[in-house]
């Protein structure tokens, strides 16, 4: 075993590091929807111009075709330089794009893939519904075939960036007679079509990262269906399994930085006794040490996972372990942050501001819910990894 990079990998890392340092956006990311769209697409265009767009994409689709180790390096460097994680180009690059590569027609790919890579289109996801959360396949947004169009009626929820997206990967029910996994269709939805109403959802942290999307007789051409009518569940499942890759590394690097920030904060902030700095409190110090160790082990787990993926090339349920640990850790760090903050817990902050621990605390609740609840992850680990009965 070793943690060493080969000479070429070291060279690659230096190249990435230098390029990122020279080209990463320097301005503060705007807060408003239009500003975010412009900023994120601009950064994507910069990456395209620099030859770094779609690092995980095969070269045949214009991507970087990087190896897993190179992706790991890219994401570590990316996060280490403070670049934000969830941006408007994420769904297109890591979700919709890969699905299109696997399941879309030649025309669909030719039209959409370059637009994603070049930073010309923002994608969003339209999977969850108010009554279809953990039980995604019970979705009810209805699509009726009318001539060469699908007519959509219903509602989606938890759609990030729906308000600035050009396209949506949309799951609809085209047949309600069979089992719930049958009769689902995966379609590309142009977000500017008439009948689409996007409403932002305010979260408990106060931000509005998510939207509800309402569909009132929205007409999508049948040519926008990916795969075949009724085969959408298998298309969607291929998307989900693609999602859990090396990109996770960036989360882990960011989390490590959050812990180091919290340690620094605990040195400066008065502790519970009002006399010594928080870090001098035995309990706070130990809890800080524990999360620091836990984040280190999450990194090791991520590395092991990537080494595993290099050998076997199948993602497997390890992604659920990483997600579960990550969620637990975020919440543990957030709760610790609140305890260090002390009576300042009464003041609303945003996790984006320096020492915005109160905001981070409320934000962290999303981590064990979104993208599959921790309960679902534990089921997956128990059943698929350990072979426990359902």
């Amino acid at each position, binding site marked *: 075993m070793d943690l060493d990079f080969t000479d070429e990998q070291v060279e690659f890392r230096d190249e990435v590091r230098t390029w990122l340092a020279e080209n990463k956006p320097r301005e503060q990311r705007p807060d408003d929807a239009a500003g975010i769209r412009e900023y994120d697409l601009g950064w994507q265009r910069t990456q395209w111009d620099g030859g770094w767009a779609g690092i995980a994409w095969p070269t045949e689709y214009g991507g970087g075709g990087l190896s897993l180790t190179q992706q790991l390096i890219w994401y570590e460097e990316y996060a280490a330089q403070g670049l934000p994680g969830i941006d408007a180009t994420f769904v297109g690059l890591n979700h919709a794009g890969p699905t299109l590569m696997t399941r879309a027609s030649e025309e669909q790919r030719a039209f959409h893939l370059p637009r994603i890579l070049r930073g010309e289109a923002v994608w969003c996801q339209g999977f969850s519904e108010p009554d279809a959360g953990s039980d995604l396949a019970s979705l009810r947004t209805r699509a009726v075939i009318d001539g060469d169009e699908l007519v959509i009626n219903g509602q989606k929820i938890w759609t990030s960036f729906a308000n600035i997206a050009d396209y949506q990967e949309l799951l609809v029910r085209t047949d309600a007679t069979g089992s719930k996994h049958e009769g689902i269709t995966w379609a590309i939805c142009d977000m500017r079509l008439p009948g689409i109403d996007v409403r932002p959802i305010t979260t408990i942290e106060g931000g509005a990262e998510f939207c509800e999307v309402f569909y009132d007789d929205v007409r999508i051409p049948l040519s926008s269906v990916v795969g075949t009518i009724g085969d959408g569940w298998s298309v969607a499942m291929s998307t989900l399994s693609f999602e859990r890759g090396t990109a996770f590394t960036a989360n882990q690097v960011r989390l490590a930085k959050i812990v180091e920030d919290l340690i620094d904060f605990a040195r400066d902030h008065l502790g519970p006794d009002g006399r010594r700095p928080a870090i001098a409190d035995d309990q706070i110090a130990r809890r800080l040490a524990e999360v620091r160790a836990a984040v280190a082990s999450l990194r090791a787990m991520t590395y092991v996972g990537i080494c595993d993926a290099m050998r076997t090339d199948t993602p497997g349920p390890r992604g659920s372990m990483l997600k579960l640990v990550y969620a637990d850790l975020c919440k543990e760090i957030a709760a610790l942050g609140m305890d260090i903050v002390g*009576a300042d817990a009464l*003041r609303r*902050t945003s996790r984006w501001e320096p020492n915005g621990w109160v905001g981070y605390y409320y934000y962290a609740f999303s981590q064990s819910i979104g993208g599959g609840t921790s309960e679902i992850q534990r089921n997956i680990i128990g059943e698929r990894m350990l072979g426990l009965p359902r």
Partner: protein
Amino acid sequence: MDLLPSQDQLDLIAAASDFLESRLPIEGIRQRADDPSAVDPDAWREGAELGLLTLGLDEEYGGSGRLLDDEALLFATLAEHLAPGPYLASTLGARVAAQCGDLPLATAIGEGSTLVGLAELRGDGCIGPDSIKGTFDLIDHAGAAYLLVASRQGTALVRATQFPDIGDLPSADPGSRLATATVDAATVSHWLPAETDPLWLRGTVLAAAGLAGLANALTTMSTEHAKLRVQFGRPIGVHQAIKHACADMAVAADASRSQMLFAAVCVQSGREDAAFQAYAAKAVATKAAIGNGAATIQVHGGMGYTYEHNAHLYLKRAHLLAHLFGEPAEVLAELLDQGAPQ
């Protein structure tokens, strides 16, 4: 020995609940979120007329002369409905005024025409019979003529005008308003020493009662959701991950409610271990309310993460109450310093 609410007390809770549901629905918190005050003045006065501020006040001061366990039950009910406004500070404020013999002020507070906000000392400072000094968090000071400043030694009423340069701060709890002010030597207008009346312990018990009420409401909210929310063809409450989470919430809520009632009786009757019991009530209820708040968000999934859902309002209120009448770590230190309970 009796630790269950009497029919009288049940009637009291029912009356308060009715009023709160009809006049102070939780939705009002969101509607007033951008208002400088969390308090609807009309509803405040109506609540005062109903006796919400004077339950434990002697009858000669216009109160109902009820005991602390009644007040505790009322404060649990107020919290269950997330009633906004400085009920705690005003209730205690009326008591200070009354015990200081200031009938007009006690009456004005009790009638709801004079509001008392809460000032919590943050960091070094001093709270004495004549003056106070330090940096204070002001909670729901908008429209308040006085601020209640409590310490273990005694409790002061200080005119709001004595706090210069009040700086509003964004409050994490949308149902409360927060501000900060630093005073060099503000004059105390009324002072009630702890030997006369242990107001710090009363405040501790009432904060614990509020936290217990939150823990209880959260249990109910989660349990109802677990019965109604269907995923994979069955209510999510069939799954142990949800069922056991609800069971744990119910236990935490019951523990905190039992202990705060026990503590209320101890403080009321001046039992020797009253301080221990009050601190224990606060510690247990703080953990229950915050734990149940976190669990409720998780049980509700994405829905629980939205501003539109009530779960976070309860959690945020829990964090607010946790920092009144002693920081959580302080409360633990105090209760460990006490002798073994009776």
